[in-house]
């Protein structure tokens, strides 16, 4: 029975007039690698900051390691690591000194591990932080977050400025991080291919709420695209439960469904005397379908 690491109940956050989070419920258990997906402005960064106590929620509760997010105690803070989107590090220190400075705060700081990562990711120990490029600084921010071997790693757009090589290296280190079965990761990103590699669970943020939360694989099982070719004109209302989007044009139809059920589909195709093809969707296409955006594919169908 794994513990609940993060839990938010009915979380609201309001900035002046805009409600960014509107009753968000999320539960992350130990060992899960949760990816946060959402359009810009859906509240990913706000959610992460509210969970970590960097922002104060307007209403609702949020707990980390069983503690109230606003008042996380020292022991719990030493078990978590955070890499922020605008990772501002103290610019005048050298790489080595900033790791030592951060290490001085933590009981379980592993300086050898940090040095090993610095070497592996090709950072120079004597260079000033202010003189590093954006990608290098991002790597440094991740190294600093990992240095005390946290149990929970929270990342906000961690790979946005990394080139593909660096990204792969970063993902590799995340995978190594998850080898410890109790380690949990929560990260928000736009890059769906990375999520597909690493994430076990997915949370879709939509209008300040969690639109979907579950295992990535089950999501891939559930959201599918169906092409129907019938012998006669199809009725305009096909009435398949869980349809996200449907385009019906005479004898052809293209549907995106959320709760795919092979049996229902079989019955339907028998009723309509139609042949159906089921398309598997990758995460990016699932994301687009769930956000209600039409893709290139249906343009082709319409021709």
């Amino acid at each position, binding site marked *: 029975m794994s513990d609940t690491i993060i839990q938010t109940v009915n979380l609201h956050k309001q900035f002046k007039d805009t409600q960014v989070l509107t009753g968000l419920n999320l539960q992350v258990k130990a060992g899960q690698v949760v990816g946060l997906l959402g359009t810009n402005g859906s509240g990913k960064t706000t959610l992460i900051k509210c969970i970590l106590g960097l922002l104060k929620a307007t209403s609702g509760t949020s707990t980390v390691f069983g503690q109230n997010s606003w008042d996380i105690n020292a022991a719990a803070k030493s078990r978590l690591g955070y890499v922020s989107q605008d990772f501002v590090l103290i610019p005048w220190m050298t790489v080595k000194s900033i790791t030592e400075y951060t290490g001085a705060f933590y009981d379980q700081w592993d300086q050898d591990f940090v040095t090993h990562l610095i070497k592996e990711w090709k950072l120079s120990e004597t260079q000033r932080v202010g003189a590093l490029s954006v990608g290098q600084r991002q790597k440094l921010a991740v190294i600093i977050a990992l240095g005390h071997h946290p149990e929970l790693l929270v990342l906000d757009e961690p790979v946005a400025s990394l080139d593909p090589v660096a990204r792969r290296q970063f993902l*590799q280190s995340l*995978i190594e991080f998850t080898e410890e079965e109790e380690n949990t990761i929560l990260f928000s990103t736009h890059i769906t291919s990375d999520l*597909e*590699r690493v*994430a*076990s669970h997915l949370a879709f943020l939509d209008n300040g709420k969690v639109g979907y939360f579950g295992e*990535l*694989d089950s999501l891939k099982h559930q959201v599918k695209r169906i092409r129907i070719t019938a012998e006669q004109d199809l009725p305009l209302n096909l009435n398949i439960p869980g349809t996200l989007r449907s385009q019906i044009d005479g004898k052809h139809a293209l549907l995106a469904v959320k709760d795919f059920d092979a049996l229902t589909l079989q019955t339907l195709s028998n009723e309509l005397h139609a042949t159906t093809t089921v398309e598997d969707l990758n995460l990016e296409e699932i994301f687009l379908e769930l956000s209600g955006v039409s893709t290139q594919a249906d343009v082709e169908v319409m021709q």
Partner: protein
Amino acid sequence: MAIKATQFEVHPSAGVPIYLQIIGQINAMIAGGHLHAGDMLPSVRQMATELGVNAMTISKAYSKLESDEVVERVRGKGMMVRKSVLSGSTKERMQELKPLMEQAIVHGRQLGLNNEQILAVVNKLFREYKS
């Protein structure tokens, strides 16, 4: 003959879940004779590192294979390919194959192939998967 992790290929951005891709490839290897009974599968860690995917996905694939009785866990060593234990009579097993074949035939028809051409494809595959 041991199998290496590098012989697998996963496409994380394909629509098919990664664990299914791995299961499919392992099954194909067994069917194609690249994996024999008694061979060890690469460790979860090696697979994860080499393929660049979450270790949990690999272990999920392995667990499914284990529950399907394709592989079995050997303490201290890892996953070992099983001798294929056949359950049920031949007739039942043939009945299990029928829907898949039906799909293939229907698809062939859609492509406009006649029976001989479809059979040609099947024979070609048989040659590839000598067992």
